[in-house]
């Protein structure tokens, strides 16, 4: 038996490869060889660890030491210190943003500490290109159980009882969906996987496909058995080449091992699985459009009913599930529904993976029990807003979702509670925004996306999103008028009520939630021509409060259009005619002497509500 004293799990997900995994791997291998450690220490390449921003990352077992931001230059020192002399190398460890102390072990790093891994159970622990490693972690045991010890009804019952809901967006109960399809009589049925992941910024499905492709395949085998399908497709977007490569390799290995194809594990059950490359349009992720696209037609939604359980792909009964939904299946079959329900709430059971991004200290993938408060995710796991800035809103659910304000951060993350705010859980995109963000601009950003991605089949969606976008553009450029907010709200509700598919039915959410929670911001844009965050260029004047200015010159040095003048240690001044309102002086001034005023402002700034000038600043305030 080959025996190693340490396993070095080096991340080879898309993010880490982009930041240099391949070169680091070579350097690591060479150095280990040079030190004569190659028979004691094994390097294993894993899929994404969900911490891509700090990549390439490396976990060392059995010590459980976690290293980040590896570089080729640091490798000799790392090998000498840790692997030869046994002294974990502090320089490459995680350090808390404010303090400088290193945290050596993964399980102590706040970002990882609060997570519960079910979907991501094999994250960073296996080589996704070796089926043996998946099997060594109980892989395909659930498929074996489902094929030999369970009837179709047994499988459906466990999944129903588990309370699992689809992770692709709508949160439809998975067991119920399987039940519908299993009851329809047909010689041909299809089991499908949605790996389109169209939400900008989301990457949980990619990560699962890259890091643990067999978990998706095993879920599909069990689903196929439950509904009586013998053919399946995984629909993956072509922009995910590594996911496609690993899935194909996994399918080939599983087929060779008799886990796919005819007579799986000698049980007499057949299931053939293929990959289909998606063209990339957002609407192709919608189930009826996805099936049209699979048939080789243009990906456009069609009215339901008939539902896919009756008439899906090629009008045959079909079930489509999201990648993350499918990755949850095998452990539920092995451990039972009570085990699954032990986390989460009554109606939102189990765990959900979120892609945490934006103006926050720790960005990445986080898997947490449903029902934990948003605040825990943002502050305990995410480490709060960057540079100690003030939290403003969190955007959930991507372009179909909405913005949730500070006052609602204590609500639990469940399908019901999030919908009540006007946002949706969606596929799990979570973008944190600080006080540097303009909420009207945020709504506009998402509408640009949906207006562009509308497939054009139905008028409310095609024309409606365009009108919403034009109005938002007007507001951010100073052409907003009284009554605009009401028009936006009315039109938004109409689009939701009359659109054919989920794209149109959710596209107004970003507008409606920002109006609901940030009304004052719309008002100041429309009435006072004032973007208080200083983002909308037509609606701001940058002004230096001479009484507060220390004359350090930081603003002047950073100004790209030489619009600031002033002598050292004397108050500086902005020449408004030259200023392009790029905001960089505002960021640069350590003394908060630069104020954001309404467009073309002339008069006394101290009379403006919300602007703290020198006279009002309390002593000791920085």
């Amino acid at each position: 038996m080959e025996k190693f004293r340490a396993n070095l799990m080096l991340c080879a997900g898309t993010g880490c490869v982009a930041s240099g995994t391949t070169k680091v791997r070579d350097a690591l291998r060479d150095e280990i060889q040079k030190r004569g450690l190659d028979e004691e220490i094994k390097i294993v390449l894993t899929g994404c660890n969900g911490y891509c921003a700090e990549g390439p990352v490396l976990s060392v077992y059995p010590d459980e030491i976690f290293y980040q931001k590896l570089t080729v230059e640091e490798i000799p020192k790392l090998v000498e210190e840790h692997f030869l002399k046994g002294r974990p190398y502090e320089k490459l460890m995680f350090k808390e943003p404010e303090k400088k102390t290193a945290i050596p072990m993964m399980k102590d790093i706040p970002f990882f500490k609060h997570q519960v891994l079910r979907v991501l159970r094999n994250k960073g622990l296996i080589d996704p290109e070796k089926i043996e490693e998946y099997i060594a972690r109980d892989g395909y045991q659930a498929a074996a159980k489902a094929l030999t010890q369970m009837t179709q009804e047994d499988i459906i019952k466990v999944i129903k009882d588990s309370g699992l809901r689809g992770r692709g967006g709508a949160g439809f109960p998975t067991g119920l969906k399987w039940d519908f399809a299993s009851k329809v009589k047909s010689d041909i049925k299809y089991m499908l996987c949605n790996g389109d992941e169209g939400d900008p910024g989301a990457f949980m499905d990619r990560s699962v496909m890259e890091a643990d492709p067999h978990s998706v395949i095993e879920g599909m085998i069990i689903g196929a058995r439950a509904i009586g399908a013998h053919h399946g497709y995984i629909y993956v977007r072509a922009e995910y080449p590594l996911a496609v490569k690993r899935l194909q390799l996994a399918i080939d290995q599983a087929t060779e091992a008799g886990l796919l194809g005819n007579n799986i594990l000698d049980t007499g059950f057949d299931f053939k699985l293929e990959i289909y490359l998606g063209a990339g349009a957002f609407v192709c992720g919608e189930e009826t459009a996805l099936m049209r696209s699979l048939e080789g037609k243009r990906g456009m939604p069609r009215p339901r009913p008939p539902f896919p359980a009756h008439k899906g792909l090629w009008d045959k009964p079909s079930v489509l599930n999201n990648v993350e939904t499918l990755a949850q299946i095998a452990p539920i079959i092995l451990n039972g529904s009570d085990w699954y329900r032990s986390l989460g709430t009554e109606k939102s059971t189990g765990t959900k993976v979120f892609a945490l991004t934006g103006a926050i200290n720790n960005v990445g993938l986080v898997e947490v029990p449903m029902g934990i408060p948003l605040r825990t995710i943002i502050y305990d796991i995410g480490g709060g807003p960057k540079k100690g800035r003030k939290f403003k809103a969190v955007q959930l659910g991507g372009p179909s979702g909405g913005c949730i304000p500070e006052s609602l951060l204590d609500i639990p993350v469940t399908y019901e509670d999030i919908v009540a705010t006007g946002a949706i859980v969606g596929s799990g995109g979570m973008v944190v925004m600080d006080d540097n963000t303009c909420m009207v601009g945020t709504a506009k950003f998402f509408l640009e996306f949906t207006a562009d991605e509308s497939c054009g089949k139905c008028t409310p969606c095609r024309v409606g999103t365009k009108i919403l976008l034009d109005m938002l553009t007007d507001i951010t450029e100073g052409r907003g008028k009284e009554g605009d907010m009401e028009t936006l709200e009315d039109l938004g509700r109409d689009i939701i009520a009359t659109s054919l598919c989920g794209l149109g039915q959710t596209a107004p959410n970003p507008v409606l939630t920002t109006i609901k929670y940030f009304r004052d911001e719309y008002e100041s844009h429309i009435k006072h021509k004032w973007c208080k965050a200083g983002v909308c260029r037509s609606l701001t004047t940058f002004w230096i409060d001479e009484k507060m200015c220390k004359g350090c010159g930081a603003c002047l040095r950073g100004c790209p259009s030489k619009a600031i003048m002033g002598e050292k240690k004397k108050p500086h001044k902005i020449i408004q005619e030259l200023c392009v309102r790029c905001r960089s002086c505002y960021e640069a001034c350590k003394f908060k002497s630069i104020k954001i005023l309404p467009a073309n402002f002339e008069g006394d700034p101290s009379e403006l509500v919300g602007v703290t000038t020198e006279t009002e600043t309390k002593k000791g305030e920085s």
Partner: protein
Amino acid sequence: MPRLKIEDLQKIKEKHKADFALREGGYRAKVTVHMGTCGIAAGARNVMTALMDEIAKANRSDVIVTTSGCAGLCAREPLATVEIMNQSPVKYCDLSDEKIREIFKEHILGGNPVEKYALVMGSETTY
């Protein structure tokens, strides 16, 4: 890979037990070889190699080996600490190829500390 039968899944799992004991932390005994500059000079590498050899020969997946820095006892190097789950750790000193092989058989597999080579019994754990 040939076509699998259901029993084969368990066999594959067994075969990979050693690697996963490292990654998942399910081990019974841990040996820490002190690899400070002095330890290496005194022959800690040979001790390590001998130990790895014994583990491989005995086909054990429940014993793991780690290294640590200087233990502050340079005169008594090579040093190693043996920790069996739920027992107090034992530090061995002045080790050699032969001594570590004996310790492996007697203490790690047999459960009886080899007192004649022990420096201290029941010192602090390495973590």
